[in-house]
C-alpha cells in the first residue's frame, strides 16, 4: 500500500468520524427542543396553550402548555409557574408533581411547568451544565431537561448592549431574554416580552386571586429560602409563613421593592388584582463556589466547597455534608403552595380552593419527587 492510498484511507476515516460526531451532536441538539413528557392526573380539566392569551406566540418556541384543574364548586383562582428559569429545577418539578397528581374539589388552578419553554432548549454557555438529570421511579427513569435562565438566543437574537425592560428598568443586554425581568410584558415586544405579556393576560383575563412563581437561587444569595411578596399579599405571606413554621419549614419574608421593576412579584401585583408571591429555594448548582456542575449536584445538592463556605459564615442558609437535595427544595415549594392556598381561603372564604391528591411535601421530603411522579411512557 503506497503513501497516497494510506492518506486517502485516513481522510475517509476522519471524514466518517466528523460526520458521526456531527450526527450525534445534531441529534442531541434536536432532542433539546423536544418537551419532556408530563403525564397529567385524571383530574385535569383542560390543557391550554399560552397562545390562547396572546396569539402572536402560536406554534412558536414560547407557546407553552398550561394545565387547568377546575373544581365542581366555584372558589378561588390560583396560578402556579414553574420553569420561569429552566435551570431552577425545583420549581419546575414542583409544578410537574402538581400536574401529575392534583384533583381540585373547589376553585380553579392553572399550572405552567415550563413558563419559559424556550429556556429549556439550551444551557447557559461556559457553565458546563449537564443537559439532563434523571429521577428513578418504581417503574423506570424519568429524565428532565436542565435548561438555561434565559430564552434561547436561537429564538431571540441579538441581545442589545443595554436593555430597557417593559417596566422601564435599564438592565444588561442578556436580561432582555430573562422572563422574570420582562413583566408586565409587551404585546409587540421581543419573544420574552411577548411571553410575559401572555402570562399577564392570563392573570387578568382569568381573574387570578393568587399567583405564585417558583424559583431557586445560590446559597450565597441573601434572598433564599424566602417568600418575596408584593405589598398586596403581606398578610397572606405572614400567615402562610407561620403555618410553614409548624411544618418545620423555615422561610424568610422579603417585601418586593417597588424600585425593582420587571419581576413577577412586583408587576403581577401592580398590574392585576392577584396576590403575587415568588418563592426561592437554595440550589448549589447555581452558586459560584460549586465544584463540577453535574446531574448529581443538581439532584443531591452536596458540595464540599459549600460546607466550607457555611463554616465561614458566608451563606444565607444552613449547609452541611448532607447538602440541600432536590427533594428538600421541591418539598419546600409544595409546602409553600399548600400553605398559601390554605391561607387565601382562611382570609377570604369566597376564594377558598380545596385541593385533593396534592403531592405530599412530607412524602417528597422523605422519599424524593420520584415517589409522586407518574411512571414513564404512560399514554
Amino acid at each position, binding site marked *: 500500500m503506497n503513501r497516497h492510498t494510506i492518506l486517502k484511507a485516513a481522510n475517509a476515516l476522519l471524514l466518517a468520524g466528523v460526520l458521526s460526531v456531527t450526527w450525534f451532536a445534531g441529534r442531541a441538539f434536536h432532542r433539546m427542543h423536544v418537551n419532556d413528557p408530563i403525564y397529567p392526573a385524571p383530574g385535569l380539566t383542560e390543557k391550554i396553550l399560552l397562545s390562547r392569551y396572546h396569539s402572536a406566540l402560536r406554534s412558536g418556541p414560547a407557546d407553552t402548555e398550561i394545565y387547568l384543574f377546575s373544581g365542581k364548586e366555584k372558589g378561588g383562582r390560583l396560578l402556579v409557574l414553574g420553569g420561569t428559569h429552566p435551570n431552577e429545577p425545583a420549581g419546575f418539578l414542583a409544578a410537574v408533581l402538581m400536574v401529575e397528581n392534583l384533583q381540585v374539589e373547589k376553585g380553579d388552578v392553572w399550572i405552567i411547568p415550563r413558563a419559559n419553554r424556550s429556556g429549556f432548549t439550551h444551557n447557559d454557555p461556559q457553565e458546563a451544565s449537564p443537559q439532563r438529570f434523571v429521577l428513578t421511579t418504581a417503574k423506570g427513569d424519568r429524565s428532565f431537561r436542565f435548561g438555561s435562565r434565559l430564552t434561547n438566543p436561537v429564538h431571540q437574537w441579538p441581545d442589545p448592549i443595554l436593555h430597557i425592560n417593559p417596566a422601564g428598568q435599564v438592565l444588561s443586554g442578556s436580561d432582555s431574554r430573562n422572563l422574570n425581568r420582562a413583566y408586565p410584558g409587551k404585546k409587540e415586544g421581543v419573544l420574552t416580552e411577548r411571553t410575559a405579556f401572555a402570562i399577564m393576560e392570563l392573570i387578568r383575563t382569568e381573574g387570578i386571586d393568587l399567583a405564585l412563581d417558583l424559583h431557586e437561587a445560590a446559597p450565597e444569595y*441573601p*434572598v433564599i*429560602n424566602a417568600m*418575596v*411578596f408584593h*405589598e398586596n399579599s*403581606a*398578610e397572606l*405571606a*405572614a*400567615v402562610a*409563613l*407561620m*403555618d410553614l*413554621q*409548624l*411544618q418545620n419549614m*423555615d422561610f*424568610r*419574608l*422579603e*417585601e*418586593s*421593592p*417597588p*424600585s*425593582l421593576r420587571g419581576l413577577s412579584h412586583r408587576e403581577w401585583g401592580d398590574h392585576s388584582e392577584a396576590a403575587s408571591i415568588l418563592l426561592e429555594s437554595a440550589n448549589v448548582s447555581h452558586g459560584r463556589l460549586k465544584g463540577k456542575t453535574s446531574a448529581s449536584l443538581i439532584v443531591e445538592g452536596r458540595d464540599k466547597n459549600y460546607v466550607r463556605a457555611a463554616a465561614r459564615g458566608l451563606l*444565607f442558609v444552613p449547609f452541611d455534608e448532607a447538602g440541600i437535595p432536590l427533594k428538600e427544595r421541591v418539598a419546600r415549594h409544595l409546602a409553600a403552595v399548600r*400553605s398559601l392556598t*390554605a*391561607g387565601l381561603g*382562611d382570609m377570604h372564604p369566597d376564594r377558598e380552593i380545596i385541593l385533593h391528591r396534592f403531592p405530599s411535601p412530607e412524602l417528597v421530603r422523605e422519599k424524593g419527587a420520584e415517589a409522586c411522579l407518574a411512571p414513564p411512557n404512560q399514554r
Partner: protein
Amino acid sequence: MKKYLILCLLLSPVVFSSLLGTAEDVRFDQPALITSAGQAAEVHLANVLFKRAGLTATLNKTAEAADLEGHKTLILVLGVSLKGLGAAGIDAGHEKKRVESLLLAADEQSIPILCLHLGGEARRGDLSDQMIKTCLPHAAAVLVVKDGNKDGLFTAICRNHNIPLIEVEKTVYALEPLKNYFRQDRRP
C-alpha cells in the same frame, strides 16, 4: 391550617420561657404602634400576631416621632433587610436616624417599648446587630425567636440592662406571650 393554629395556641404556653428579669410584672397598654427597625418584613408577622391576639395596633413601617400620638406602646420589630430598605426607598443611615428619633420621642413621652426579633438567625448580621444594640437598651421587654439569640447577644444586653427577655421556639409561638404582655383593652 386552622388546626395548626389552634394547636399552637394550646402549645405556646409551654414552649416559651421567661429568661431574665420579671416578665410577669411587665404589662403594656393598647393601642400600640408597630413599626420596623430595619425594614425587615417580619413587621408583617408582628401585625398578624397582634390581629390574631385581638390587640389593637397600628402598623406603620416608617413611623416617625409624631406618629406616636394616641399610642400607649411602641412595638419595634428588629431586623435590617436591604430589600426592605429598598422597598421603603430609604438607606440604612436614614433608617438608623428615624429609629433613634423614635426611641428618643418614646422615652420623652414615657411610652414603653416592646422589642420583637422574629426573623431568627437569618435576620442577624452586622447591620441587624447594630440596630439591635441601638434599640434594646430602650426596651421595657424583649421577645425573640430562639435561634436569633444563638450567640446570646439578646441575653447579654438584656442582662446588662435588667430587661425581661422571652424566647420562643418559633414566631407562631409568640402569640400567647404577646397576649399576656398586654392589659385588656377596657375602652367601650
